[in-house]
């Protein structure tokens, strides 16, 4: 599991590559939180296009980022979630607090 990131106006965009489970989540969490606080950013956009696997540890990770970011007045949103991942997201009810957009442009326009 590997992440890449870019920053577009105070939005931290995280690009996931690989499999998100309990083993990989703790490392990812640390990296994302560090980037977010170090660079004093506002929103987080999680790009799930190259995420090949996600279990409920992913839900925990998204909820955790939601807590941090919303304490800071920001928002978390998801882009490029495939059907498989949408299924788990729906099940978890997380879509009530975190928006899913089709792609990055849509997310940047609406966040």
């Amino acid at each position: 599991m590997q992440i890449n990131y870019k920053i577009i106006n105070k939005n931290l965009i995280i690009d996931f590559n690989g499999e998100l489970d309990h083993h990989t989540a703790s490392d990812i969490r640390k990296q994302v939180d560090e980037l977010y606080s170090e660079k004093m950013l506002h929103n987080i956009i999680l790009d799930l296009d190259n995420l090949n696997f996600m279990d409920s540890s992913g839900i925990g990770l998204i909820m955790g980022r939601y807590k941090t970011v919303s304490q800071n007045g920001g928002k978390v949103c998801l882009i490029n979630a495939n059907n498989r991942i949408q299924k788990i997201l729906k099940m978890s009810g997380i879509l009530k607090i975190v928006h899913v957009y089709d792609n990055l442009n849509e997310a940047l326009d609406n966040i």
Partner: protein
Amino acid sequence: MQNNMKLVIPSKSQNEAFARVVVASFASQLDPTIEELADVKTAVSEAVTNSIIHGYENKIGEIKIECIIEGNMLKIVIKDNGKGIEDVDKAMEPFYTSQPELERSGMGFTVMQTFMENLFVESSETGTKIVMTKEFKNTSTEE
């Protein structure tokens, strides 16, 4: 079609991915769809993760994974000798987690229930046993 396998691994988190791959590779005998295979992988990932973080609380113990194929049915048994679940009914409720500080969502059992057909949980102070089954649709009948 009839086959079975037993896998024993230590409760290290890097074995979560390994366990998923092994079960998926065993299940591939049943000509699963990509969706069915992803269901099985996700359910196995949840159960194995639970043994690691809740059962053994990050101490190292053994996790036993048994798979049985009977016709187009796959049965998966995942066992640990960890501390067990005090109240199984409560544990199975969506969003209930005993470890919110680890960023657990409490959705593990819900995921297993949704992606598999039957889920059976047996637990005592000496450990936990999860039995899950799934029927595969388009199975070749060759032995």
